[in-house]
């Protein structure tokens, strides 16, 4: 009897508590920078695509939502001819980001991707590519290693020494 009344009173007191609801469109939660949301493709500092179309992201993807086709430009630089992510399948696990050797594919703190039609959930390369570097500002794959594709000459990379002249006599 008295416990019942006490219950009523304590539930009534909840009317004066702080609300736990977040009024979503007006009031938003803080999303950490490493939040796994909408996937993007980033560019390097020179504005070239970072993606080298190695297929590692597509291989790592547990739901097979990434599809791409590699091709090369005149200087031998690999890039994806098309790059397609079906976000209606994506589970935002971030394995693609971990697999990527060039930091090209990244997950961003954005989840507002609602669409009225299913085909709208399929993002093509032009939808995925952004102008900046995303989370990793300084890294540039072609400056660090790899073949010369017109970005730098032989021996000018970050971890490279100038090439040795094998026909010279000097040490």
């Amino acid at each position, binding site marked *: 009897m008295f416990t*019942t009344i006490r*219950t*009523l009173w304590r*539930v*009534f007191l*909840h*009317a004066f*508590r702080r609300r*736990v*609801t977040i009024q979503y469109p007006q009031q938003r939660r803080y999303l950490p920078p490493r939040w796994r949301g909408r996937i993007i493709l980033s560019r390097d500092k020179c504005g070239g695509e970072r993606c080298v179309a190695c297929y590692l992201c597509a291989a790592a993807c547990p739901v097979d939502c990434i599809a791409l086709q590699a091709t090369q430009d005149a200087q031998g630089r690999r890039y994806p001819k098309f790059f397609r992510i079906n976000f209606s399948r994506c589970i935002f696990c971030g394995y693609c980001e971990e697999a990527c050797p060039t930091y090209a594919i990244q997950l961003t703190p954005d989840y507002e991707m609602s669409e009225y039609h299913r085909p709208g959930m399929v993002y093509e390369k032009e939808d995925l590519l952004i102008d900046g570097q995303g989370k990793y500002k300084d890294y540039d794959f072609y400056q660090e290693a790899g073949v010369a594709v017109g970005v730098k000459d032989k021996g000018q990379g970050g971890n490279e020494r100038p090439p040795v002249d094998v026909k010279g006599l000097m040490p």
Partner: protein
Amino acid sequence: MSEVIGHLVMIVGLLAALLTVASMLIWGERRLLALFQDRYGPNRVGPLGLGQVVADIVKILSKEDWIPPFADRAVFEIAPAVILIATMTAFAVVPFAPGLAVADINVGLLFFLAMSSMSVYSVALAGWSSNNKYALLGSMRAIGQMVSYEVFMGMSLMGVVIQAGSFRLGDIVAAQEHLWFCVPQCLGLAVFFIAGLAETRRIPYDLPEAENELVAGYHTEYSGMKFASFFLGEYVGVTLISSLVVTLFLGGWMGPLLPPVAWFLLKTFALVALFILIRGSLPRPRYDQLMSLGWKIMLPLSLANLLATGAIVLATEGGR
């Protein structure tokens, strides 16, 4: 002639007001429950979320009104109407202000008791005609619960009748001019309120529709506007019980400063809020607990209250 028109205006106005209040309570209940649970409730559609009422009505009106092929069609269609008719008719005797009642008849209280018992038929017929075991179980429970709570619901009011010396609700309110009956009849108030909870099948006593045991009880097979009728009937019932508690125990329209109707509405909605608070806090008892509470505690209490009130009135006023 003008008297007839006045009555008609009163009836139509009361019906419109009741349906509005009942549908607003859908919103009100959700907002209040949210308030007691640290949430906001529906607050998006229109100012304060009031447009939710319109949205709900439009939605439920456009739903498919499906009658299962195995149901007893005629009875199935009558059942939801009975509850609305019974509860709304009972409102005819409630005096909202001095002289402001559809029919302030001299057996008003008995009329209310009769009409509120009628809603048992609705539940019974709904459960029977659905031809579904869960619906039948729910309506069996409802019948058992409402019939047994009906007994002391009437008993608990007899103390009020003895003190006021009349079955006319207007007289009962007038008799509370100096002291509201909630003080001398506090036992009667408690018993009547609990019986009212059981009568409206609200949450501590919602065994007839216990979702986790019986799907939805007697209205399992109902959809669309027929389902909504049961809900409207429930909300009208809540308003009815609240306004009767106000009329019989809380001085009806009486109060300082504000006009009588305002006092009546204020008290009624405070009680409706109490109904919702109870819904938000108490768990549902087992069926045998419900029955033993009714027959072993509430009935003796109301009988004792009746005896004591009768004895005191007889001793002080000499039987009149």
